[in-house]
């Protein structure tokens, strides 16, 4: 990309250097000249000049210009404080206030309201209007989470632009005209979007306010505490509004490198669960009796110590430090190699090393600059919502092309240039075919390969759900793509195995993992076949599914669960139930009293991301710090402290006595984190690939996966990768694919304001299958797999391929995980009742 030219202009007598094409308002800010605005927001894309607040005088132009939509030119002379400008600013404020109710004392925005600030700063101070103001019914539910007060609206278009151009749901519109104009949805339907909470941050007046923050506090009652949301792998930067030690609101904390200044509704409204009745607020013993930490640690140490060498650990939601301490406990104190941080059998360490090489690693901002974005095996909307907005932005504003290959239709399909659907369980086969197609072979994946070939800069956004075998093949795919699009620019011999070539061709890989801190835990050593820093081990342990089987057959005895709920989130619920019952001693760390936590002999509470102090690693390698914002309810102690004490009680001194020492222990153990300090992480985080210690990342072994294409597949006995060739579905049976629903889980059960979003199980079928099975959308059906079954409501989706159906995982009462058995399964569908006419 060519460097933009710098221009110099004069604003209020100050020389300001700006980049060509920049808007005058932004240039003025660089020169410390403040120009008031309501509608301008660079995050929303092109300016609209709707509010007229930013008028300035430019020499040579007779009329005042809007500084938000006037690009800078060299030698421009701008005045922002002349009488003419002041008159215009006074007039604009006076006009805006003609219909503004000035009910600031009851308005939630009072005290943090741009309209208040600008009126006092740039307004006339007096109103000459004596007429009746316009009246609307207020407040109205725009959605169950957002209240709209149309009297307060100044028609700046920000929320409408967000809906039209950022989340692209196109639901918000300005209806009517003139002074009757108001923001609304078609037919007064509720605004439904997983991102719609952002409009309350955007609104420069109190027209859009959160029901969850309604009248809860004033800006002078609260403290803002910056942290990171760890409810999904996006790890958006958030700021907690805290009053009386309790989180009252979550707002964005712009970090262009991570979240682009947006957060999803899950992160925004999912904070009331921090105080839910289901929260574990003190250590508990079997049966739910409460105890203190000393007793609990002594019990846990005695139980685990007695099973030395026969204990396994599964980690889900934990910080890097906690992950590091767990692997210290399991490997150091309990002499067991069995621990994992992945819900299903993941790729082997050589595959992980290949996919994480700094040269092939794409960062989030690479999506903005990509020519082609290839979404493979994941639906960002469900798994990492903020990436969905990032991809939409790249397509809309930067002209990127999108290619999608998934099992299930994704939210991004509408903007895709080419779409491929592969059958559930066929991901590895598909990636293999695609690699061949990119190489020139004609096959099913050829249309996709056409779009990917010679495409320039490609970012592959791939899901961990692809499975181990597909992940192993992904390396070859990236490699083939790099070589193919190399054209003639690469000098020297091209080797199929050299990853540097693909790096040169700008193929970047960005993973969408299943759990929030998957990458951090892997790098901290929570893997069966790698220690901290992804270092190779002498003895490899069992992965998640092998641990389950070992517990059942008795070769393992004790289990440590940290922030995981296998009975809800892992495939094959029945088998997990059996494993948890078979384990003679279970120590669980859990935020909430889940079914899994109930099986624990010793249960420790976990902190939420508003209380925790620790680091997490973004899927693109950015280390970010989660900082404590709110008070810990009850008798909850920091996770690192409990783990360090447990390790000590087991006779293994980790040397960890505080969060800084825990972080130090982590950076000492992980070579490529070595030069990262707390100060370097700061508020924005730092990608370890961009530090000097990146060169310590373990190099690919001589036996790189490239030389053994199916290396990763060897251990893959997961449902997704079983290429065992399930026979063609018997009459009436459909191949079952599952997906993680954004709203399935404790988030909608423990947050009262989000309860209305709690999903019920839907069976997604194609129109062909629906016709064959005589199903209609809304019918209730029983979905049976072997002896297991669940009830679901039929939803006919045009873009679901024939022969396949989809169910959501984690849905309370009808969890699709219960039907899975570790292999690709097909299900029988039986109609129970028709949709009422």
């Amino acid at each position, binding site marked *: 990309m060519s460097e933009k030219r710098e221009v110099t202009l004069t604003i209020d007598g100050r020389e300001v250097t700006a980049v060509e094409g920049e808007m005058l308002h932004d240039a003025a800010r660089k020169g410390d000249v403040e120009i008031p605005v309501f509608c301008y927001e660079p995050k929303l894309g092109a300016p609209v000049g709707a509010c007229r607040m930013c008028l300035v005088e430019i020499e040579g132009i007779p009329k005042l210009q809007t500084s938000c939509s006037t690009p800078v030119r060299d030698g421009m002379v701008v005045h922002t404080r002349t009488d003419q400008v002041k008159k215009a600013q006074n007039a604009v404020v006076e006009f805006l206030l003609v219909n503004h109710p000035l009910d600031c*004392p009851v308005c939630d925005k009072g005290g943090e309201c741009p309209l208040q600030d600008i009126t006092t700063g740039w307004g006339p101070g007096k109103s000459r209007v004596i007429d009746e103001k316009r009246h609307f019914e207020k*407040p109205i539910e725009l959605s169950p989470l957002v209240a709209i007060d149309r009297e307060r609206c100044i028609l700046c278009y920000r929320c409408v632009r967000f809906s039209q151009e950022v989340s692209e749901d196109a639901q918000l519109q300005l209806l009517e005209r003139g002074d009757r104009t108001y923001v609304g949805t078609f037919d007064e339907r509720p605004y439904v979007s997983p991102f719609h909470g952002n409009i309350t941050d955007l609104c420069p007046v109190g027209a859009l306010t959160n029901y969850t923050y*309604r*009248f809860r506090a004033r800006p002078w*009652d609260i403290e803002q505490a910056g942290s990171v949301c760890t409810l999904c792998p996006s790890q958006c930067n958030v700021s907690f509004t805290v009053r009386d030690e309790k989180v009252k609101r979550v707002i964005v904390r712009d970090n262009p490198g991570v979240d682009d200044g947006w957060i999803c509704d899950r992160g925004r409204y999912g904070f009331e669960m921090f105080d839910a009745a289901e929260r574990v607020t003190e250590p508990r013993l079997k049966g739910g009796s409460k105890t203190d930490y000393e007793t609990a640690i002594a019990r846990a140490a005695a139980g685990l110590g007695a099973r030395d060498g026969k204990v396994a650990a599964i980690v889900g939601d934990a910080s890097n430090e906690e992950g590091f301490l767990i692997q210290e406990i399991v490997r150091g104190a309990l002499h067991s190699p069995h621990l994992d941080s992945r819900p299903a059998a993941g790729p082997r360490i050589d595959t992980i090393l290949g996919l994480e090489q700094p040269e092939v690693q794409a960062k989030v901002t690479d999506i903005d600059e990509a020519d082609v974005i290839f979404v493979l095996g994941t639906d960002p909307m469900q798994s990492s919502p903020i990436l969905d907005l990032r991809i939409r932005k790249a397509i809309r504003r930067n002209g990127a092309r999108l290619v999608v290959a998934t099992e299930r239709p994704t939210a991004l399909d509408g903007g895709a240039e080419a779409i491929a659907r592969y059958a559930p369980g066929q991901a590895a086969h598909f990636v293999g075919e695609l690699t061949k197609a990119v190489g020139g072979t004609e096959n099913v994946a050829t249309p996709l390969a056409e779009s990917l070939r010679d495409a320039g800069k490609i970012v592959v956004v791939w899901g961990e759900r692809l499975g181990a075998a597909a992940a192993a093949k992904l390396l070859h795919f990236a490699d083939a793509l790099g070589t193919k699009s190399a054209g003639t620019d690469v000098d020297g011999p091209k080797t199929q195995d050299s990853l540097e070539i693909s790096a040169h061709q700008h193929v970047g890989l960005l993973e969408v993992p299943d759990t929030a801190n998957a990458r951090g835990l892997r790098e901290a050593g929570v893997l069966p076949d790698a220690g901290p820093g992804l270092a190779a081990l002498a003895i490899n342990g069992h992965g998640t599914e092998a641990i389950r089987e070992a517990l059942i057959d008795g070769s393992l005895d004790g289990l440590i669960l940290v922030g995981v709920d296998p009975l809800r989130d892992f495939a094959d619920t029945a088998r997990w139930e059996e494993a948890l019952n078979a384990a003679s001693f279970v120590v669980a760390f859990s935020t909430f009293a889940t079914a899994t936590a109930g099986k624990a002999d010793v249960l420790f509470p976990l902190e939420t991301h508003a209380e925790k102090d620790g680091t997490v690693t973004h899927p693109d390698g950015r280390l970010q710090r989660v900082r404590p914002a709110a008070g810990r309810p009850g008798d909850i102690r920091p996770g690192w402290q409990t783990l360090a004490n447990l390790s000590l009680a087991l006779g293994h001194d980790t040397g960890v006595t505080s969060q800084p020492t825990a972080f130090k222990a982590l950076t000492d153990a992980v070579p490529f984190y070595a030069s990262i300090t707390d100060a370097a992480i700061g508020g924005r985080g730092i990608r370890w690939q961009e530090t000097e210690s990146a060169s310590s990342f373990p190099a690919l072994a001589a036996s790189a996966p490239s030389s053994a294409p199916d290396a990763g597949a060897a251990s893959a006995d997961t449902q997704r990768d079983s290429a065992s060739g399930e026979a063609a579905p018997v009459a009436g049976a459909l191949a079952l694919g599952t997906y993680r629903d954004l709203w399935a889980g404790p988030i909608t059960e423990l947050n009262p304001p989000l309860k209305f979003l709690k999903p019920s199980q839907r069976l997604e079928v194609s129109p062909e299958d629906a016709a064959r099975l005589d199903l209609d959308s809304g019918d209730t059906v029983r979905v049976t797999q072997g002896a297991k079954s669940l009830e679901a409501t039929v939803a006919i989706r045009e873009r679901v391929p024939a022969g396949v159906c989809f169910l959501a995982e984690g849905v309370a009462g009808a969890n699709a995980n219960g039907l899975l058995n570790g292999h690709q399964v097909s299900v029988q569908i039986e109609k129970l009742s028709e949709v009422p006419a």
Partner: protein
Amino acid sequence: MSEQTFYRQAGSYLDSVDVVEVQRGPEPGGVGGAYRAFGETLRGLKTTMSRLIEGPLTIEYPEEKTPVYPRFRGRHKLHRFEDTGLEKCVGCSLCAAACPADCIRVVAAENIPGERVSSGERYAAVYEINLSRCIFCGYCEIACPFDAITMGHDYEMADYDRTNLIFTKEMLLAEPIERTPLKSEDE
């Protein structure tokens, strides 16, 4: 002091300004001294004696109380609308923002139709003034956009227990026991 004094340079001085002649009294002792000792004492006693006849002027507090001026800033009062009986306070927290002693705590809540507490959309669910911290500056009264809080005339709030000095909304809304007489117009 002349303007000159202010503007002159350091180190220099002017005789006319800086030199002050000291007026000294007569030397003690002698007849003059004796007269001054007794005579002046008697002169002072004359005033005492004449006042003695007037009778005592002591105000027997707490049996008797000094009337206060109408704008005296005493214990706060919260008000209701006389016609509807609704609280004037909407829980906007501006008083808490204005309070230099940080002694006001407001937690607002939303009015439920049918159980309306205030006239606006919101009302103060909790309104507390910690009177042991209050400095009676009256800023809360000035900040209030609805004249919901005013300073009353009561200054008798002493208590044996600090916790009793946290006045809740109910206490502030209740009609205070008027223990303090008000000065009449011409007083």
